[in-house]
């Protein structure tokens, strides 16, 4: 069996009284496209944010590409990594947010080049060429000099995907990437994600788009109340769910 790109072991996370993740364990293999589904508050977004270390886990461990995230084991105890080291680990993942979070004072092109230039200190002309290629890939060559406020929601989200890809991540995390979009703009973003999936990118997608999950996902994971309830091939989980809770969720969504 191939070594997993992400190994999640017994991860728990609470926000005050609320337990967002309860003892979650999961593997994501290289090149796999995984869709996380479930009601809001089920922990799927929190799981994504823990992998990107926007939220720190309370217990358990997450390994990305064989490297333990956020902490270092030393003398039988765990020590939290410095902000700089966490920043370096984050570069292996790209994050796409529900609300895009593009930098409004920078053009589409500048949004994409910001990370490679400022964080990775790469050469300007090389970064620029790559950014232009990324814009072409998401179908926005003509919008390089537009500010986010001049773009539609779908266009903004496509720029956000290009911005994440510019850091050359091994893993792309999508947090409900189409939930904030008008219905007619959902398709263009999903099309970009499908193309990305076909290119072999490892992806974890929190989504309510079951059609996308059915078509693209190698595996669908259903979560409820901070725990993984059921997982398997999309056709199995979505078509013939074994668990009662999964069936209840699916019949409420469709």
């Amino acid at each position, binding site marked *: 069996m191939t070594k997993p790109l992400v190994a999640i072991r017994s991860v728990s996370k609470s926000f005050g009284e609320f337990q967002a993740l309860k003892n979650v364990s999961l593997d994501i293999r290289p090149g796999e496209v995984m869709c996380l589904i479930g009601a809001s508050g089920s922990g799927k977004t929190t799981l994504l944010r823990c992998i990107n270390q926007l939220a720190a886990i309370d217990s358990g461990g997450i390994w990305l590409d064989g490297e333990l995230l956020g902490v270092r084991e030393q003398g039988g105890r765990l020590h939290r990594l410095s*902000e700089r080291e966490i*920043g370096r680990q*984050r570069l292996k993942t790209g994050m796409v947010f529900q609300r895009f*979070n593009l930098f409004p004072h920078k053009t589409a092109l500048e949004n994409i080049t910001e990370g490679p230039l*400022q964080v*990775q200190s790469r050469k300007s002309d090389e970064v620029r060429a790559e950014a232009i290629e990324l814009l072409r890939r998401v179908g926005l060559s003509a919008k390089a000099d537009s*500010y986010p*406020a001049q773009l539609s929601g779908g266009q903004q989200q496509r720029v956000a995907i290009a911005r*994440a890809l510019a*850091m050359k991540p091994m893993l792309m995390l999508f947090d409900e990437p189409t939930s904030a979009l008008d219905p007619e703009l959902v398709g263009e973003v999903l099309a970009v994600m499908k193309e990305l999936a076909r290119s072999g990118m490892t992806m974890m997608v929190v989504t309510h788009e079951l059609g996308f999950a059915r078509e693209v996902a190698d595996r669908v994971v259903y979560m409820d109340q901070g725990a993984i309830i059921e997982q398997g091939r999309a056709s199995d989980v979505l078509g013939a769910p074994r668990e009662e809770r999964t069936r209840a969720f699916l019949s409420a969504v469709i």
Partner: protein
Amino acid sequence: MMPAPALAEGFPDLSGMRIARKPHWFRWLSAALIVAVLALIVRAFAGGQIEWSYVSRFLTVKVILEGIVNTMVMAVLAMALGIFLGVVVAIMRLSPNPVLKTVAAGYTWLFRGTPLILQLLLWFNLALVFPTIGIPGLWSARAVDVMTPFLAALLGLGINQGAYTSEVMRAGMLSVDIGQYEAAQAIGMGRLRALRRIVLPQAMRVVIPPLGNEFIGMVKATSLASVIQYPELLHNAENIYYANSRVIELLIVAGLWYLLVVSVLTPLQMLLERRFARGTLRLAR
């Protein structure tokens, strides 16, 4: 396809008719009243014991012009110091480190809690506390020589301004969406780089109107430095009227200069605002 249903009768065609202007009688009446009151005030001053020839004569004398230059130099330098301190203190205040947070809150408490004129007098009279200052073994000097009126005014005005500006900057940074911090972190930025590259440029748009306000306040606050012998506009005007007793005339001269400076600053602020409005809809459309 179904044909559109026929429109109901009884609604006349209004196209081509213009909307008449309202007369606004009360506006005309109140404006006339205000003009009349102003005319009375002007007449009173014209007939009062003011030698207007002195006003025009002293408006452009060398000492007054030097005073306005010193006022502007001090206002710009003290404001620069205030903004620098304000940004640093605001970042400290929003840091997760409790030591930095407490130091920042203490600074704001101390310098916002005491009168500016008192702070100026304290800085100027620092020699009474520390006759000599310096780094032991390396360098030392008599405090009276170091703490000139210029330095005392700069420190007093700048450090006091920093306490106020830090709150303006903090408000600006808090106005930036939390998602912007997260997006910056997600592309590997640390806290300080995210602040410098992503958060502060967006906060600038919010803080420029209050900062413009603060700068206009600073131009006038420099007049307080007259009490510690800094040769700014009011101090120089006072020196002239100590000699020639034309008190009101020279105060009017100083007042006219302050008004002129503030009038020039307002359009400059608008230019700055436009610069930092990059990417917002107002400019884009």
